[in-house]
């Protein structure tokens, strides 16, 4: 499916740092749509080994800001045809997505999201508790009595996909178009001269290039330090866990912001579950017991009958966090240095649209219109993009 290249060449037109979904997608579209083929993707581990392979595979576009909704809507559109594009089954499965609301404050936020979504043609609607109960007869709508479900944001296009395969599909497609994927190769430095990218130092040798795309969510600050840029990105781990396979019983994706739960059932029958970020900065993918305790308790609030279902494994990834919960993308003060970062809870769902928009940005040197709201410079201008508004719930 991929070739191994014995050595790095002396120079490439574009060096993409990070062989995750985003980096490989950018390589794929650069080669396919922009005719740029002399590309090296540099990956310090194995492809898809970061957050591409650690997320809980949920795809949706029910965001709050116009920027977010339009961006993710384009991503959902691209997702639908990826399996055919790649000739590789990504198990892209439209399952419907319920974001449960347990307070009137979150019901208001759901309506806000629904209205913005509908404005841009995205299918989202606020539904009441009876609708939720009808769609999910097994749910404990009272949540054990302490956080009754008042309603939900129902987002019909919500989907899941086989996360690893996304990286493989883009990787194979890029490989077939001449892109070189160099795994087990670590970037040790980036040379900048007079505000321009000159080259990239790696554990396997020096590459000269004038364009670098940095797509290393979880490690972005380390790369930014190499080029002397500052950013608001800070790193917190995000954990997830998975159950033993059980026969299918849960069709849609269920999210509860108040209970900090998201869950879906895979084609293999496992329940994949996630929760909130870890509460402090750590650059390590260690697991914690309290994560599984809290998440299990909240899962049983919603689905008490899962008491005997067993957790097989827990894991963690490193999340690039930003103050406004929106990504940081596009051109930077350094000419030839492009950023695809700040993905918060990992950015899996944005993989195709990031590939599309970043390939455009790298090829033309100008930001793609869909990422105009995500620039690094927005912080200096105090013009944040407000996905956090959805999370702001007082009273």
């Amino acid at each position: 499916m991929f070739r191994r290249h014995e050595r790095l060449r002396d120079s490439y037109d574009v060096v993409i740092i990070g062989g995750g979904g985003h980096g490989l997608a950018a390589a794929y579209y650069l080669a396919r749509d922009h005719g740029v083929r002399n590309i090296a993707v540099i990956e310090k581990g194995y492809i898809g080994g970061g957050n591409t392979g650690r997320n809980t595979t949920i795809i949706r576009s029910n965001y709050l800001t116009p920027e977010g909704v339009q961006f993710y809507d384009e991503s959902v559109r691209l997702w639908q045809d990826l399996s055919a594009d790649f000739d590789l089954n990504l198990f892209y499965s439209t399952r419907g997505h319920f974001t449960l609301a347990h307070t009137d404050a979150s019901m208001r936020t759901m309506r806000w999201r629904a209205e913005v979504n509908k404005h841009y043609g995205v299918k989202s609607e606020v539904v009441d508790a009876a609708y939720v109960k009808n769609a999910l007869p097994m749910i404990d709508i009272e949540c054990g009595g302490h956080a009754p479900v008042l309603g939900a944001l129902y987002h019909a296009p919500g989907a899941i996909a086989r996360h690893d395969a996304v990286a493989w599909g883009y990787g194979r497609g890029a490989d077939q178009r001449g892109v070189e994927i160099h795994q087990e190769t670590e970037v040790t430095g980036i040379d900048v001269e007079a505000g321009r990218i000159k080259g990239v130092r790696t554990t396997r040798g020096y590459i000269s290039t004038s364009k670098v795309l940095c797509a290393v969510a979880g490690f972005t600050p380390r790369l930014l330090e190499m080029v002397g840029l500052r950013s608001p990105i800070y790193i917190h781990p995000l954990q997830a866990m998975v159950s033993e396979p059980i026969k299918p019983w849960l069709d849609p994706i269920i999210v509860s912001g108040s209970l900090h739960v998201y869950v879906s059932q895979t084609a293999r029958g496992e329940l994949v579950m996630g929760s909130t970020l870890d509460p402090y900065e750590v650059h390590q993918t260690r697991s914690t017991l309290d994560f599984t305790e809290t998440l299990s308790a909240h899962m049983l609030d919603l689905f008490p009958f899962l008491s005997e279902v067993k957790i097989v494994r827990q894991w963690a990834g490193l999340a690039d966090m930003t103050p406004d919960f929106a990504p940081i993308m596009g051109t930077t003060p350094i000419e030839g240095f492009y950023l695809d970062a700040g993905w918060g809870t990992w950015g899996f769902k944005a993989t195709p649209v990031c590939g599309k928009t970043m390939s455009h940005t790298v090829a033309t040197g100008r930001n793609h219109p869909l990422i105009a709201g995500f620039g690094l410079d927005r912080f200096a201008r105090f013009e944040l993009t407000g996905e956090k508004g959805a999370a702001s719930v007082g009273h």
Partner: protein
Amino acid sequence: MMYRLPQREGEWIDRTRSLAFTFEGVRYEGFAGDTITSALSAAGVMILGRSFKYHRPRGILSFANHDVNAIFQVGPVPNVRGDVTPLADGMEVLAVNTVGGLQSDRAQWIDRLGRFLPVGFYYKAFNSKRFFPRWERLIRNLSGLGQISVDAPRLQTPKRYAFCDVLVIGGGVAGEAAARAAAATGAKVMLVDESTRVSAHSADGVDVLTSSYVAGVYADRWAAVIEPHRMTKVRAGAIVFATGAIEQPIAFHNNDLPGIVMAGAAQRLLQRHSIAVGRKVLVVTTHRAGYEAAVALLDAGLSIAHIVELNSTSVAPDLSSLLIQRGVKVVVGDAPIEAERNAEGCVAAVHFAGERIDCDAVLMSGGWAAAAQLLLQAGGKTAFDDAAQMHLPSELPAGCFVSGAINGLFNAEAACMEGRTAGRAAAEFASATVPPSGSSIIARSSSPVAPSPHRRQDPRGKDFIDFDEDLQVKDIENAIHEGFDSIELLKRYTTVGMGPSQGKHSNLNAARILAGKRGLSMDQVGLTTARPMYHPVPMKHLAGRGFTPERATPIAPRHSDAGAVWMLAGNWRRPEYYMREGESREQCIAGEVAVVRNSVGLIDVGTLGKIEVHGPDAGAFLDRAYAGRYSDLKVGMTRYGLLLDEAGTIVDDGVVARLHEESFYFTTTTGGSAGVYRDLLRLNALWGLNCSLVNVTGHRAAFNLAGPRSRDLLSAMTSVNLNDGAFPYLGVREGIVGAANARLLRVGFVGELGYEIHVPHSHAQRVWDGLVEQGRKFDLRLFGVEAQRVLRLEKGHFIIGQDTDGLTNPFEAQAGWAVRMQKPFFIGQRSLRLLERRGPRQLLVGFEIENAVPALKECHLAIDNGEIAGRVTSVTYSNTLGKTIGLAMIKPSLAVLGTKLTFRVTDGSTVTATVCPTPFFDHDNQRQKFGVAA
């Protein structure tokens, strides 16, 4: 076929106690002390389940808590591991993953399609958008193992904390020696073992937990011990990992037939349950353990057909000659090619290069994998040892020790010695006042093992590497060929090691194949990350009783009595409104609003955060923390307080009261109280001003008595002079209300003459009851959060988090009046200077509509020229005013009085509103300042 032997010494079953159970509807009997699997085996039941992918008949493999193909449905409980689950009387046991029963599984056809289902098959087929949903339904329905019942109850499983000096994981020879040695030094020792029995016992001074396992070892030696009906979270001073090693299978065609088991499984069946694996046993081995098992079986009177060792020279010449003397045929340097099945589908013979050996049981012993998962979770490292053919501990984190088979020691005497050393060292580490840093010592003298070869002469048939996931040698090889040639990619593509046993019998062999194919060393190939859980853990254990903290004010019982309909506000429950017989929700709320406007109402506002700041710098502190100025506030007066973050965003608000020269009392929002208090403590610590903060949120109850008659009512109950002159609007007074020391704040949130009454928690109910009693004369009604929202909206007050969002600054919220930009410094000031220059991106405005518009709700959008121009943040129909009023956050160009706003409601239709001044009601605030004549 397996069968039960006559009573043997040391067996773990009690033959005097029969237990009846059913399996797939057929009645069987076992004994107390049996597991589900041993009881079925004793009854000669060989086929226990169907495999995950191909639905092949499967039986026992390891009999050591990773027999993933012999898991059962027991009533509502899915995926019960039969090899370790004690048999109980009356159990109704079913096989999992069958379509229409174990014997006639209608999904067996998948096995015959096997060669059309190569690794990665799923990725390569059915990827058309049109057909995938149908194909997916089929896969989904065939996937999964056990069945859940949505009617099963929420089980409450207790949790416990435990502390010990030394935690020993594993109660084998090494673990037992370690535990005894540690306990002998006086250390508090806990030993955990999966078996129902271990030799160590409490008499040795060791706290022994049997039938229990450590699911994970987390930071700072924090271990999750899963007992049958409880989780114990152990904080250990030191840990001895005596977790042993896991016997590995040997790959040959049909190595999954029922009757082919690990050598260790045969021994455990024999020793614990007196079960013979067969009448004619064949042993295939690469390790001494295979010979040892043969000796044990022979001693029990079983017949050993053959021993075949795969190595070219024997690893156990001593045992080999002993067995030959006892009449066993031993072959060295041959390997099994294919197992043959009988009519029942169980093993009947094994083909080797030279011969075909009849048998009804096969023991496999393909070497060992160290059970190092927990050690790795704790931060340890392993390296592959060529002599031992295992990954052995190479680096131990502080306070972690190893002994026994995990360290490559299979000799009981040596393991015992090593265990004692480890136990003493662990006790010493735990008792050291300053624990020594750096790694603990690893000493070992390992027993060599030969690698298990994977000979394949015939491309047909299936030689399994991973029994959870139905993966064959060729699956691994094909994946590597396709470029999935690192251990992590290989795992993700093939799913090797991803099943419920998490690769305990497959990861090592998969790594060997990868190393061989790529010409790398085992260390270059590495292993996938070991993560919790070591064995799967039921969610009931992790969830425990699932505490959800909930706060209640002291008035909560009164609210319930008065018909309160509750709503959640953070951790608090608050009355949304009070239900009245024969009235709708809307009527109830309207009635509550009306009584506040016309007479007097009472609301419990005890959920507000309440903080005191004392000291010479108290005023200076508030000046720096809040956007307003408080150092010049007169004693006995209050002022609105707006709290910002460093970016100038509105975070919280409340009322600040100056009680004395050096003493302030202030409120925060309900949701914000804990966070605001904590943030202020931090600022106080940072600034080092001479003042200190006290959070009295729980200590004080608070009520708002509001309405034109509030003064009349309160005056009968208080020592405080309530005359406007003595106690003006925005004043604060301390005095007696009822029999309680109270703080009275004359505030006007709802826009009427009113008093916030803050009293100690202990007096709250009596004061409340007194107010209600007095209120009878004035037709007092209790009002809830909804009525308060309407009342404050009529006054145009915003609610933080509803009318503002995570990016709103004071200028945008039209609260610039609450900000004193001239102060030397306050949090958010520098950002506000910048934001003031830049101008607002949005503005909060009041709007009105002449009629009632029930369809218009909060968060409906304002639309201007087809674009989003803002949103409704609050809206209500005001009975007081006879029109719809609301607040909207809109773009500045529309925030001009008299501008027509277009709101789009849920069904897509639009509503027109007019931007108007606020307050909507009593524009000059006469009522709250001076009251109105009743």
